[in-house]
């Protein structure tokens, strides 16, 4: 099963990131795609809801995710 990065957006919603260049480590992906200092988790993409009708309402149940995989190092912008 493919994996993805998830993290909590500045607006409170959920952002997920798909790794395209499979030669990159998750830390390398997060260093660019997760805003600096933000916790992220690497999870199976099967954990995402299959129905995206209410995509903008998706949130991460942070306590149940346990310890984050790491923290990002990227930039903050409108969509994240």
């Amino acid at each position: 099963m493919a994996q993805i990065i998830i993290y909590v957006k500045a607006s409170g919603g959920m952002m997920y990131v798909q790794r395209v260049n499979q030669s990159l480590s998750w830390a390398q992906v997060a260093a660019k795609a997760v805003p600096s200092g933000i916790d992220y988790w690497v999870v199976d993409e099967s954990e995402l809801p299959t129905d995206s009708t209410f995509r903008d309402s998706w949130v991460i149940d942070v306590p149940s995710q346990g310890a984050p995989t790491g923290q990002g190092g990227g930039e903050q912008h409108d969509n994240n």
Partner: protein
Amino acid sequence: MRYYQTKDNDPSGVDSFAGDTLGAHETNSFLVELENAVVAAGLTPDTYEGLSEDETQLAKAMAVYGGGAAEWKIDSGTTGTAYVVTSVSPIIPAEAYYEGMFVAFKPLITNTGACTVNVDGLGIVPITTLAGVALTAGNISAYAAMVYSDTNSRFELVMGVMTALTTAQPATISLLGSPTIPDITIVNQGITTALIDDDAVTAAKLASSSVVSASIVNYQVTEDKLGTNSVSHAKMADNSVGESEIIYGAVSVSKLAANSVSTGKIQDGAVEYAKLSNSGTQTINVRDRVAKAWVRIYSAGTPSIVGADMNISSVGNGGTGKMTVYIDVNMPNGDYAVVGSGQQNASDSGSSAGGVSCAANSSSSFNVETWDDGNSHGNFYHSSFLIFANT
């Protein structure tokens, strides 16, 4: 001559002194030895005495002997198989043959086959080659030079001249008693490289096309042996230089004539991005005309799917119709062009009024938003983006 230092005088003889004191006869014997040496060399002892006497005559006699007088003989034989040679008078001949004795003479008659020689009456011995092989007819006629081998009791011919040297015709020389060699033939590899001085064989000594390819050992002609521009294109046969013979980097740009490399000479895949012009002159800059990154994303399902890409590290999904595309190798700066297009639904035939917007965030990412035909954010069936940037 005798051993004066070890033999006492005989009082009963011509010298009356007893013991080891030399008498007049013995003293005269010294002088006779010297006189014989001088006279045998063809010199007449000086008639003067005392201070006016020529005291270099013994030295002059030695010069005569050293100059070959004792080695040169006169032939008086009457056949081509038995030479009879004697020293030139008044030379006193050797007492017996000895190892290394050198004798030269002009034969009166060309040898007719195996032959012998009798030198100064010392005895009849064979004349052979150095290898001991009997001579064949004609080996010696104009001149013969030979060395005595005491071990083998024979004279060995070291040189026999067949024809006398004249201005019109050079001498024909028989080397080591071998048959006549009209022209010297050099056998294959008879003259090794070590015997040829550096630069001894100039180009002018080589006939055109005399050195064929098969005669050149692989890698024998090193680069430092070739003058600048000495190997022109005309000297190379078609396809004679195999690809494996060209070391990587050996053919520099300066070695290629203008337009010499046509498209057909370039292997598929050989031209890499780094070889494209990034000139500041826009009309010849190729890199700026090449897309720096592109991606096609299918967003109808969850998660979205990246169909194909170039230079994309990841794609982020921030909500309905909101994505961020992260570039793998960053652009030089955030000032680049992003071009996007999309198809709202798989069944759309071009009548949909949805839209795609995209804008650069930074050198490493750009944002994408897609709107459906109701002017609300919507996930498109697929959308595609590409980047152009200055290098």
